């Protein structure tokens, strides 16, 4: 969170709606630990990361949807996922990411 705090505060100052995607759990080998955050604003700007770049694209889509709908969701990415070929982590791990609009 600390790495994206400046950016989030700037976006809040600009009255941008923001979504946060937070790694809440990892299994086996994963590049970022729980607590890693990717922040997205309604202009589509991005700060931070939840993986080594493997799933950022998919998380970005979820974040945009969360900004639009306000609906939080828990999404899982990993080798065991049916979408592994599309959005999987190449390192073989699984990550659970909670995506929410920053309404709090």
């Amino acid at each position, binding site marked *: 969170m600390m790495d994206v*705090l400046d950016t989030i505060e700037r976006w809040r100052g600009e009255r941008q709606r923001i979504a946060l995607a937070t790694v809440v759990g990892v299994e086996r080998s994963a590049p970022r630990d729980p607590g890693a955050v990717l922040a997205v604003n309604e202009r589509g700007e991005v700060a931070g990361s939840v993986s080594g770049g493997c799933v950022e694209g998919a998380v970005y889509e979820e974040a945009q949807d969360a900004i639009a709908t306000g609906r939080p969701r828990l999404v899982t990415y990993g080798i065991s996922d049916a979408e592994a070929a599309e959005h999987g982590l190449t390192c073989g791990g699984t990550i659970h990411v909670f995506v929410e609009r920053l309404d709090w």
Partner: protein
Amino acid sequence: MRSLFERLAANLRGDRPAALATCIDGTGAGAKLLVDDDGTDGDLGSPGLNHAVQAEARALLDLGETAIRTFGADGEPVGVEVKVFIESFAPKPNMYVFGAIDFSRAMAKIGKYLGYRVTVVDARPIFATKRRIPDADEVVVAWPDEFLREAPVNARTVLVVLTHDVKFDVPLLQVALQTEAGYIGAMGSRRTHANRIAALREAGIGDGDLARISAPIGLDIGARTPEETAISIAAEIVALRSGRAGGRLREGTAPVHGSERSIAQPAPLQEVTL
């Protein structure tokens, strides 16, 4: 009224401990409870749940750990209805560097880079100056052992002893071994360390305690310069923290990122048993 985010941000900026609990599943997903030194804010949906999560959050915060916990709908500890992600925002761990030499300047820099609050300690006022060690959060003129007797130390604390002079090192290491510091590294050649060990044994320190000292300090990367040496020491600190031997990844077969780590960085150091 100040939002939950603003209160969290203020704690982060002030380096004050805080934990943020978020329901991540079910109808209450997104509900939050913030726990800090001033109390709590937010609502997870029931008083019982708020109470239970608050207690759990404070326990995790003390350890600097981040985890998912499950509770019953009203906070029953055996329940599974509610899944809560509890993130600890613990203050930076301390790195104490003893001896204000060229190596300390490089060590302070890399210590900051790794997320430590770095204090450099030396008894000599001519050497222990902010000008010589600009990256240190604090430069203290004090006898190392006297400083450490009073300084806060927990399992996340790192002690880097660069004085490599038996008359300073021995009293300092005696104090260090009474703390629960996660890393105690001492610079010096194998001969210097043999002399230190002999003196510490004479002072009544047992083999179990002596094994906690990382000396000669650092990983074997052929470091010569202060910068290279600081990298070697930093790498040893990270390796011990994550329970790794510190060799080349290409020589091994274990997963690169380790197994199911749920602890936010910088993680608590493991007990060192060599």
